[in-house]
């Protein structure tokens, strides 16, 4: 199988200028690779740097060392650790998705528009995007009465499900999951699992962080454990 992503000696430190130039290590010397179509799980205690790795891949964090070689459809091999901002924006629009447990909403945007927007970004036309968005909201059991209202006043669970609908409606080449199921109830977790299987069938490669080990074991192909900064493969 072809390697889609190869992380090589990734390092991220944060320099806190407000606090006597204190250095905080996010992760260091992280190396692993993911094959095309594979689902890789990363576990480890809180603060071990799991999210840091995911955010470095998505470039929300700028890595301070190492390389992240990604096999892009558009550009061939790209080192995400040093790719141009413009290239990163394009890759985020078309190839790399990111799901977290936090919803960041736009003012005056309805739930349906919010989900459809993510498809429009990829170049889908408006009518098709709307239909797919409706499907996805239904899949995540968001009441139809809420589709054309603003999410600001949704309940916690509704916001979470809306967030997942937006992030998982697209078929990206690589999907990064940053504890998306952290505060979901059992029924919602099942719908996430179903969608993960669909995306996997469609060939999406995924890297996920989960605290719920049972859930993780039911979806991933391989697991790495991050323990005091060292990444180990678990069988």
């Amino acid at each position, binding site marked *: 199988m072809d390697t889609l992503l190869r992380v090589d000696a990734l390092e991220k430190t944060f320099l806190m*200028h*407000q606090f006597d130039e204190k250095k905080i290590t996010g992760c260091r010397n992280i190396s692993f690779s993911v094959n095309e179509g594979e689902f890789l799980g990363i576990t480890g205690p809180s603060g071990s740097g799991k999210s840091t790795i995911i955010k470095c891949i998505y470039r929300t*964090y700028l890595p301070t060392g190492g390389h992240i070689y990604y096999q892009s459809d558009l550009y061939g091999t790209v080192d995400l650790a040093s790719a141009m901002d413009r290239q990163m924006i394009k890759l985020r629009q078309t190839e790399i998705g990111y799901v977290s447990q936090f919803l960041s909403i*736009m*003012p005056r945007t309805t739930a349906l528009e919010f989900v459809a927007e993510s498809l429009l970004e990829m170049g889908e036309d*408006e009518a098709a995007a709307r239909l797919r968005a409706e499907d996805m909201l239904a899949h995540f059991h968001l009441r139809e009465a809420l589709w054309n209202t603003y999410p600001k006043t949704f309940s916690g669970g509704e916001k979470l499900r809306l967030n997942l609908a937006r992030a998982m409606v697209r078929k990206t080449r690589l999907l990064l999951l940053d504890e998306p199921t952290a505060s979901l109830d059992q029924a919602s977790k099942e719908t996430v699992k179903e969608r993960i299987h669909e995306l996997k069938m469609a060939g999406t490669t995924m890297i996920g962080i989960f605290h719920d080990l049972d859930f993780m074991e039911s979806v991933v192909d391989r697991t790495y454990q991050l323990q005091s900064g060292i990444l180990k493969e678990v069988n």
Partner: protein
Amino acid sequence: MLGYRQLPKTTGNEAGRPMTHNEMRPLLSVRHLTKRFGKGCSFCRQPENLPPLNNRCPRCGTVWACNDLSFDLYEGEILGIVGESGSGKSSLVQCLYFDTSVTGGTATLSNYQDGETNIFLESPQQKRYIRNHLMGMVYQNPWTGLKMNFSSGGNIAEKLIAAGHFNVHHIQKRAADLLDHVEIPLSRMNEAPRNFSGGMQQRVQISKALANRPPILLLDEVTTGLDLSVQARVLDLIRRIQHESRTAMIVVSHDLGVIRMLCDRTMVMKQGRCIEAGLTDQILEDPHHAYTQLLVHSLL
């Protein structure tokens, strides 16, 4: 020949291909832009002599409002410029719109003389041409951008006439379309913006700036001082414009919330210098410069 072209409407289904040459080539390219207020002296003309966190020359009192700024703006993107009052943000866009002359540096537009001419050195006529055809500007204060005694429709007509449109029918129709687009009731088209609320004035100003379909729109603190619901409406309008016409925009704001909502890339300015630039979420979650860290940690 001057290279003015109308922007194509996006047709969808185009995000999934690699960037074309045109997309890789910046629409606006600014290099070493410098603007000083004051005569300058032999000491402060060496930029490295200025104290690191001050843009005022300790010897002659000259203020270096923009100090060696270089950046690119691409088609269809929104570039954010954030910084505190006095950091040089407004001076920068005023230089780009020729409201004030630059001290040094170059700017080229890919759709003007093939990107080979420094527009800062053009003749006043050519600068007017660029302002009327290739750029739009929305000021923080609607009184700067609008003729308050003209009607709203008249304000738009003024811009269209400057851009070489003389057909009265066409002008009226375009003005009506634009005002409708920014949710100004057509019944008030002949009323002077003087009578309008601040948010309405701002929306008339945006419609005026858009009248000639400029490929580049400069927005200087356009939501500052508006109350929240009006602000949301103006932001909504800006996003809609970007979505529909792929107009490239420079959004100047001291409000990180506005920047977060609108911009793909962000440049942080302090004391006339660019201290940090990157993807907006990266600037907000992984700020590198001490000032940006302070700014992010002050965010409500």
